[in-house]
């Protein structure tokens, strides 16, 4: 039996669901799949979710994670929700900038900024 390793912590603040990524490094497909297994049910089970993903713990990631974020983003917006990213350290933000995903995602300095102005569910 596989060891259960939760990859996220989930908090709720007013109308927002805040997902904190727990791993410092998110590298290969298996780790991204484990993260997807934790994240995607949240996205798929709640119409109109106001989702904030907190990257405060993340010090390293690969392009595989970017693909997962895009998948999650599509699901969130299809169901009328919103997705915001926050607390991305400068080295990780540079990856978003190089790939121009800083134009695709709404990125905020911290979770306080990210939760301002979210639509009520």
């Amino acid at each position, binding site marked *: 039996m596989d060891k259960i390793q939760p990859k996220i912590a989930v908090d709720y603040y007013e109308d927002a669901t805040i997902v904190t990524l727990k791993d410092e490094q998110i*590298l*290969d*497909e*298996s780790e991204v799949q484990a993260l997807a297994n934790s994240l995607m049910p949240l996205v798929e089970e709640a119409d109109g979710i106001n989702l904030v993903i907190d990257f405060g713990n993340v010090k*390293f990631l*690969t*392009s*595989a994670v*970017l*693909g*997962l974020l*895009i*998948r999650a*983003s*599509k699901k969130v917006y299809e169901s009328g929700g919103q997705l915001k990213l926050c607390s991305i350290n400068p*080295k990780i933000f540079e*990856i978003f900038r*190089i*790939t*121009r*995903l800083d*134009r*695709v995602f709404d990125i905020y300095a911290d979770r306080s900024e990210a939760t301002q102005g979210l639509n009520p569910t």
Partner: protein
Amino acid sequence: MVSDSLVHKSVVIDSSRSAVERLCSRLLEAAAAKDFDGDDIFAIHLALEEALLNAIQHGNKQNTAKQIRVEYFITPAKFEISITDEGPGFNPDSVPDPRAEENLRKCCGRGLLLMRSYMDEVEYNEAGNCVHMVKHKTKAPNAN
């Protein structure tokens, strides 16, 4: 103290995550021993992960029986590596630009862009199954 000796080795690993982790750990330690700074180590790490994942997924099609040949050359001034898989290769010029508006929301295709962005040189052999990458140390080597 930075070792002036050159590190030049050729290794063969299987197409598994554990082998990639061990190799990355060894290479990053070797780069740190040559006094590459944190930004350079981050860049080398990202390029290594993307290149090795490409070799496993696209080159060797996740067949753990297939191998990856890695040759590296680390000096106090530069980190140089060649990674060869057993696949038929690909044409890197045929990879769409993931920054183009029509590709921005695609879920994959960013690894090569990141390798090119973080390393100073990225070249493929004619067959397209061997990538050669170079990172020059950002901070000047210590003259002492």
